[in-house]
């Protein structure tokens, strides 16, 4: 039983170490970039399990729909509101997780009666996973490697700017396409209304004079 105890102890010890490693090291991050459609009077929530000490960033942008605004709300596992904004078009919020657990963020379009919105969000949790998961960074990076790392970071920010530019351009383009169809419908509609009203006016006026009364003619009402 002594050896069994020792075996159990060392197994438990390894378990403890691994667990501690998983909990304390806020590494192995993830980035989720999602674009979804939010119908009118709807609310959609997303959840993520985050460990203590992880630095997270939530960025969102409304692409199409109405006044291009949405309500956003971010809550920690205990229900405390970390971020709450109404009718925002674009925002970025960075926080460090103070508790382990499930963080929840919701986008709400409940204030809108008939426009549905397309919302983009980018939720970055922790750092990017390293290129070599099995590496043990004992030695420092060589000059070439650190140059590669800085180029990689710079290109990441280029891609990030490109994404935001694309979203803003999508916004502008959707407005332009809306304008185009609206101009078409309204022009045809107005031309028809114009014709109907002018022909109608003449016939209405004629009807005022068509009864055989010789009393004062009504000029206008």
């Amino acid at each position, binding site marked *: 039983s002594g050896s069994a*105890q*020792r075996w*159990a*102890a*060392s197994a*438990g*010890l390894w*378990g*403890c170490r*691994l*667990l501690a490693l*998983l909990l304390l090291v806020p590494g*192995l991050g*993830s*980035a*989720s*970039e*999602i*674009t*979804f*459609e939010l119908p009118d009077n709807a609310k959609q*929530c997303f*959840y*993520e*399990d985050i460990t203590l000490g992880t630095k997270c960033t939530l960025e969102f942008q409304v692409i199409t729909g109405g006044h291009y605004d949405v309500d956003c709300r971010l809550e920690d596992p205990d229900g405390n509101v970390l971020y709450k904004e109404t009718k925002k078009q674009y925002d970025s919020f960075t926080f460090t997780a103070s508790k382990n657990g499930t963080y929840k963020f919701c986008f709400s379009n409940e204030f809108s009666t008939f426009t549905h919105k*397309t919302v983009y969000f980018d939720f970055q*949790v922790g750092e990017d996973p390293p*290129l*070599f998961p099995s590496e043990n960074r004992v030695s420092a990076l060589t000059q070439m*490697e650190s140059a*590669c*790392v800085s180029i*990689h970071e710079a*290109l*990441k920010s*280029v*891609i990030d700017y*490109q994404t935001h*530019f*694309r979203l803003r*351009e*999508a916004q502008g*383009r959707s407005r*332009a396409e809306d*304008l*185009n169809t609206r*101009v078409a419908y309204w*022009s*045809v509609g107005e*031309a028809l209304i*114009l*014709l109907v009203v*002018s*022909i109608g*006016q*003449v016939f209405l*006026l*004629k009807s005022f*004079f068509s009864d055989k009364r010789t009393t004062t*003619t009504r000029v206008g009402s």
Partner: protein
Amino acid sequence: IFTRKGSRMAGVAARQLPAMGLSAVLLLVLCAAGARALYFHIGETEKRCFIEEIPDETMVIGNYRTQMWDKQKEVFLPSTPGLGMHVEVKDPEGKVVLSRQYGSEGRFTFTSHTPGDHQICLHSNSTRMALFAGGKLRVHLDIQAGEHANNYPEIAAKDKLTELQLRARQLLDQVEQIQKEQDYQRYREERFRLTSESTNQRVLWWSIAQTVILILTGIWQMRHLKSFFEAKKLV
């Protein structure tokens, strides 16, 4: 170092065994939780759609995992066989690129051939509808497009690349993605310009047309009324 610590711990093993057992269980739970990803809840007949705006010849990889809500225990079951999700991907022209049924855990891949908004729709297609009635499904989803979809450790192993070569490959992939995005931007800008020019033309011609209609109907009104009043001997 470990053996020294191990022998020290063995002495107090009897007291700390339950605690270690608990942490081992916690560890297992963490491992069972699987890859960390965003999740959301979906109803039984609900269809959730996500949009990926991507340039052409870009690969998109999506991973999902579903968990079913157990009404009696009020928890989400770790994994339920028999749950299925139907994944449908449409390209910008509305043509279906991918339409397949996957199990409770799945991975779908597609490559875009036209640039634009691709719509990825998921809805549950469970074979165990009875259990599902009135319940919710928790879906863990992770969608990666372009360069993010590449698995570098796998590429390094397959092509036997050194660390520097792998980093160079990653940079090349990133730059390729930037180039594709810029080509897509040029295509979008052209579409935007065509739309604006079409609006400009429409506004121009319809304003002229409406002014002409206004003048013509005005003239017709006056002439018609004049002849009407002359007939009535009022003028």
